[in-house]
């Protein structure tokens, strides 16, 4: 046997976990040391909720509950879309991603560290929104419902991470934030996150199933008994399919990039 042949080096499981942990730690430190990204991402959804969900909506308890459920979806979209969409675009364009891909970095460590960050942000945003809803929003839920909404919010980052990854694998760094906003805000509106779809033109309601935010919102609304009565599983399936499709496209684009 010739020793120049590239024999696969089996990496002990402990080492692999250590890489994942280190990658996540430094992703966390990187975000922590970039308050210009972290603060707006954390503050924007609560501010939006305060302004449009609470102050301008002194309506019924029904509306307050609806809006809390949909704003919790709106809130968790931001860190995943911006974290991946803008973050990956910058790291791709600057060559950091290329350098890591030359080194034997496990691709999963890169993606997972960013996803864990998005989940952490989502959890913080959800807690802030929940505190606002409970204290001044007149939202009354059972402990189990608060918890389940939180789980949906944190788990719901996955399809938006995939969408963000797709954007980040193609967009240039300077254009990425604008592009993300161009997708984020209209999608929130068209998915009925700011006002119920029943108040919008029928067409909006008909095309709403195209948007992942719609499906996630339906899950949240069903949790507090305000869904449209549709089954839960098709919404979950739609989110999974959407995430897989975006991920597949992103993989293709990333392989061609750099």
């Amino acid at each position: 046997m010739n020793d120049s042949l590239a024999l696969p080096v089996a990496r002990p499981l402990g080492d692999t976990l250590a890489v994942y942990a280190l990658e996540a730690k430094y992703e966390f430190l990187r975000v922590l040391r970039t308050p210009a990204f972290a603060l707006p991402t954390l503050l924007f959804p609560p501010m939006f909720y305060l302004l449009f969900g609470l102050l301008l909506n002194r309506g019924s308890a029904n509306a307050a509950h609806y809006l809390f459920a949909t704003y919790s979806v709106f809130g968790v979209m931001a860190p995943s879309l911006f974290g991946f969409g803008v973050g990956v675009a910058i790291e791709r364009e600057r060559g950091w991603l290329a350098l890591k891909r030359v080194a034997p970095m496990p691709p999963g460590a890169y993606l997972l560290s960013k996803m864990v960050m998005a989940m952490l942000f989502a959890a913080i945003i959800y807690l802030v929104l929940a505190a606002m809803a409970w204290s001044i929003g007149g939202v009354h839920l059972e402990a189990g419902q608060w918890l389940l909404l939180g789980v949906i919010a944190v788990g719901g980052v996955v399809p938006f991470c995939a969408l963000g990854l797709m954007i980040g694998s193609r967009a240039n760094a300077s254009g990425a934030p604008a592009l993300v906003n161009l997708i984020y805000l209209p999608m929130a509106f068209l998915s009925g996150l700011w006002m119920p779809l029943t108040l919008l033109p029928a067409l909006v309601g008909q095309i709403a199933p195209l948007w992942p935010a719609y499906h996630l919102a339906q899950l949240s609304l069903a949790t507090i008994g305000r869904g449209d009565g549709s089954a839960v599983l098709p919404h979950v399936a739609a989110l999974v399919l959407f995430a897989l499709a975006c991920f597949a496209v992103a993989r293709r684009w990333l392989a061609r990039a750099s």
Partner: protein
Amino acid sequence: MNRSDQTIAALHGVSRRFGTVLALDQVSLEVRRGEVLALLGPNGAGKTTAISLLLGLQQPDAGSADLFGVPPRSNGARNRIGAMLQTGGVPDTLTVAELVGLFRSYYPRPRSVADTVNLAGVADLLRRRYGTLSGGQQRRAQFALAICGNPEILFLDEPTTGLDVEARATLWKTVRQLVAEGSAIVLTTHYLEEAEALADRVDVLARGRIVASGSVQQIRARVAQRRIRCVSALAPEAVARWPEVRSVARAGERIEIVTDAAEIVVRQLLFEDTTLSDLEVHRAGLAEAFVEITREAA
């Protein structure tokens, strides 16, 4: 098989097109264990594209690339390489120590931190965030990331661009040390003296093709040009009319003659000017050879 003759990285007739530009046109090259290969050529010659193909960052439109006999993207190959890219967009917010720690974790048999730090000369930078470093210090940090995995082959894309003279000398010394340990190195550079100082072999690229290939001496020999300097009473204008002379320039009290036939010109000089003094004849440096070769290719 003789270890020192083993080819560990190769391009086999690769072409790569970007839109209408043919960046590489049927280029073949190989790197053997323990040798330094310099890719030399003007901007846009295809040096960085060649490196990207060897690293698997780009796919060739035709031909193939391999590292250690397998495709560059395979983990088996990536465990054994290190690279310093021109666009080493390292995050500003992490410290050099953190970056080295992260990259070491990717490799199954990394170099020790102390060893990496000493070789790359980043001992004084460890606690600094990458974004606060000067251009030259950033290149040193990138070099540390390239070598921390203890690679068998190291790709350096214009490694000394932006380095001061002292830092460049340090990097050269380190490269020689790595070669002595058995590493192979592929190096692209603008600096011709860098190739002369480090390379065992040189491939000259021009407009996406390899126009010359060989040792530094062989590349130089491709060009017969020599440079004659002397203090002479002869008028430069008169010497310039000799058929063997390519050009004559006055440099202070000396004249400098460029010719392909130094022996004939020297004989004629000594014949016509018996007071001639301070005679020197130089073979062209790699710089002249390189200009000559790429002009032929044009």
